């Protein structure tokens, strides 16, 4: 069964906090291959992580 966008956003977020299982990764990839909205979502939460890392590293010298 196809995952919904809502389920996919949850998996994308969890993928930043734990190792996803094989099935989860496959289903995620299948969905992302055809869904521009979720692909944008994934790019954006990854950027959010980069931004937070940069915020953390520049803070002490700010």
């Amino acid at each position, binding site marked *: 069964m196809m995952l919904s966008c809502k389920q996919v956003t949850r998996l994308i977020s969890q993928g930043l906090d734990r190792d996803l299982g094989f099935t989860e990764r496959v289903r995620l990839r299948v969905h992302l291959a055809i869904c521009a909205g979720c692909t944008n979502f994934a790019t954006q939460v990854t950027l*959010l992580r980069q931004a937070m890392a940069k915020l953390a590293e520049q803070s002490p010298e700010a």
Partner: protein
Amino acid sequence: MDDFRSRVERERPYLLRYAGLQLRDPHAAEDAVQETLLAALAGEAGFGGRASLRTWLTGILKHKIIDAIRRMSREAPAVSEDEFEALFDQRGHWVEMPGAWADPGAALEQGRFFAALEMCLARLPPKTARAFMMREHLGLQTSEICKELAVTPTHCWVLLYRARMALRECLSKEWFRK
């Protein structure tokens, strides 16, 4: 001696801002900073000028913040994913698909982007913000965050999910709006 004291004291506003952002409680932030400054003055020898004073003080403060979070985390967890319900239709598809952000790489080079990010962080509910800051700012693992916040791993993932959903929405509006 007095010179060291005044240099430490000069970092107080920065440390307060840092602690405030993570603890979301002015009194708890004030306490954590006060403890940090006392520990710093008592442990001047430990400084030894290896790192910058600010970096050294921030390192002490991080421990005080974790202690404070531990004390604060007795509050009952109220989990709800419904806040973001409106973003999806009944079948779980986007009502409005997220568009691409224009030139995100350039955003990371701009100070004003980080001001917008801090503003969005300040709008998160306290517990959500604490979980997110522990994960992305202090770099803790989910298991440690669960322990500190006294919640289950599932709840922890929900908190982090909610933080990311809210921050993505907020940044879309405040920074990347077309």
